[in-house]
């Protein structure tokens, strides 16, 4: 079974802190994604990566950066957390070729106070 593991289920941070969200997948997938999920808005793509050290902006990249130094790990970074970044963050991975089936982690619920 594909496993996508997010390092934290719940995080509480203060405004202005630097926040790291970690995601690891064990299926040797090329593609990895970070989404945020807010009520009534569905999942919105923040960044995705199709290879090590490669990244592309999604629909809402402002205020975020990412790092992919190893194939299995994709990190989301909030350089200076703000209250409007309070949300559920979901990581996903998929393989290249054919139909893109994304496998999701359980999510990190981040609260910025």
């Amino acid at each position, binding site marked *: 079974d594909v496993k996508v593991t997010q390092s934290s289920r719940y995080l509480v941070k203060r405004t202005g802190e630097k926040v790291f969200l970690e995601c690891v997948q064990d299926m040797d997938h090329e593609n990895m994604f970070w989404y945020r999920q807010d009520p*009534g808005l569905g*999942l*919105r793509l923040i960044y*995705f990566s199709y290879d090590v050290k490669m990244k592309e902006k999604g629909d809402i990249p402002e205020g975020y950066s990412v790092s992919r130094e190893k194939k299995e790990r994709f990190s989301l970074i909030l350089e200076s957390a703000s209250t409007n970044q309070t949300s559920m963050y979901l990581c996903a991975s998929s393989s290249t070729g054919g139909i*893109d089936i994304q496998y*999701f982690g359980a*999510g990190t619920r981040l609260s910025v106070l």
Partner: protein
Amino acid sequence: TQLLEQSPQFLSIQEGENLTVYCNSSSVFSSLQWYRQEPGEGPVLLVTVVTGGEVKKLKRLTFQFGDARKDSSLHITAAQPGDTGLYLCAGANEYGNKLVFGAGTILRVKS
């Protein structure tokens, strides 16, 4: 930008009733996927439809992809409390490597 309009946003029904969830867009998608998400978990894929007009059945769930590959529906027959959850549709772009998600339908089935 591709958009997917999903409706209804909320659905609360009694056990045994039927229901349909819709996803509509003005864009064409190479494939469309339906996910189900339970509280505290990430979305889990239910089905992928690829061909215009395609119909897939998964027990009491029937999924249909529109002929023009711009819309899709999920029909549940004789809903059960175990069907409760958030249902998300997602359309794949022409390269198949990015998904656009609908806003989701929260389904509650009461016993």
